[in-house]
């Protein structure tokens, strides 16, 4: 959450609630929205580390609001962020360990584990398809987010298929 908030602030000063709305607009309904409390906590931390600075604005009829702006150090942190490449996705470690260890325990069958996991992935895939159909078609960023999740899931399903091909009939 830290760097996305910095990135949103690079356009100009804003308060916490505006940042939440910006995020919602950008990522669409697909993205599980962070709650406003989480945003305020993160802004507090960013201010403490000198990446943003806050200014209290007095409002006559409502409580004061705090407007944040990006500092020089904040801009630097953002630059460094864009400079780095992101980590690769990882294999589902927990499921993999279950699969690897099941035969030694005698408590679970590998093929049954694969079938169960596949059902779960397929259900999630189905929900993603539905979400993609209801999400605004013109919100490309939101659609790409959903498609990314679907392609990852597809890869996991393909991998389950490989596991099944290798392990079927071995027990």
């Amino acid at each position, binding site marked *: 959450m830290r760097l996305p908030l910095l990135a949103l602030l690079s356009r100009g000063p804003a308060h916490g609630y505006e940042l939440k709305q910006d995020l919602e607009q950008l990522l669409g309904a697909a993205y599980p929205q962070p709650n406003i409390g989480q945003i305020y906590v993160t802004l507090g931390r960013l201010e403490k580390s000198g990446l943003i600075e806050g200014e209290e604005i007095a409002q006559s009829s409502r409580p004061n609001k705090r407007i944040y702006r990006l500092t020089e150090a904040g801009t630097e942190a953002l630059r460094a962020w864009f400079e780095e490449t992101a980590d690769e996705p990882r294999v589902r470690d927990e499921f993999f360990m279950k699969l690897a260890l099941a035969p030694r325990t005698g408590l679970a069958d590998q093929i049954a584990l694969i079938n169960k996991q596949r*059902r779960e992935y397929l259900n*999630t895939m189905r929900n*993603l*398809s539905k979400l993609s159909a209801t999400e605004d078609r013109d919100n490309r960023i939101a659609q790409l987010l959903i498609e990314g999740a679907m392609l990852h899931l597809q890869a996991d399903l393909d991998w389950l298929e490989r596991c099944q091909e290798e392990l079927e009939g071995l027990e």
Partner: protein
Amino acid sequence: MSRTADPDDAPRIPLLRAEGLVKTHYGEGAPAHAVRGVDLSVRHGEFVAVTGPSGAGKSTLLHLLGGLQRPDSGSIRLDGECTDSYSEARWATERRRRIGIVFQFFNLVSNLTVADNVELPALLAGTGTRQARAEREKLLAELGLEGKARSMPGELSGGEQQRVALARALVNHPRLLLADEPAGSLDSKGTREVMRLLSRFHQRGQTILLVTHDARLASAADRVVSFFDGRIADDAELGGAPARGTGLSGVLELKD
């Protein structure tokens, strides 16, 4: 197209019931056991996807169910009626009336226009010229191909050709639509389009059996049969709540 699925008055007899299907291909080399004892029922209004790796025998299964190939043993009932003694000609008739099929490579008649490709099966099934044209116009409009009636298949994109193939498969209002890797030669946009259309026809009551290796496409179905090595490994109804908490938000959440 006006048929709707009402679970309450749907007949109890499954639309399709296969029992003990076996098919072995004898070519060069060792015999390939493509289908090794499959029982499968499809109820009226159901959308069933059969998935599995390539070479698992799922296309052979679809061919058996559409009468394009004959099983070595086992039995297939359509609407409760045993098809075991059907002749080739009878199967051909059924494929015009009760069963529509779409294939990976569209299989359109390349020297006929789009309109003729769609109208031909209707005319062969005995529909009058005027009505065949009306059906064709309705379907092409529905599939976003209004302006393409006079085009030749070769002038269309893959996605468009597959939509023509879908119109052709549905022109006689078959009770069962069989789809064999319908997005197998399409790009991701074409895939989404096919997925959307299959879901739409299904929502109106069309019974569909889809064979695909693509999990995204399969997830449009309400039941997924996993096919491995000629056998059914799992048969799962979709649409229930995810067994574990994470579900959607888990796969969509962006972490720092």
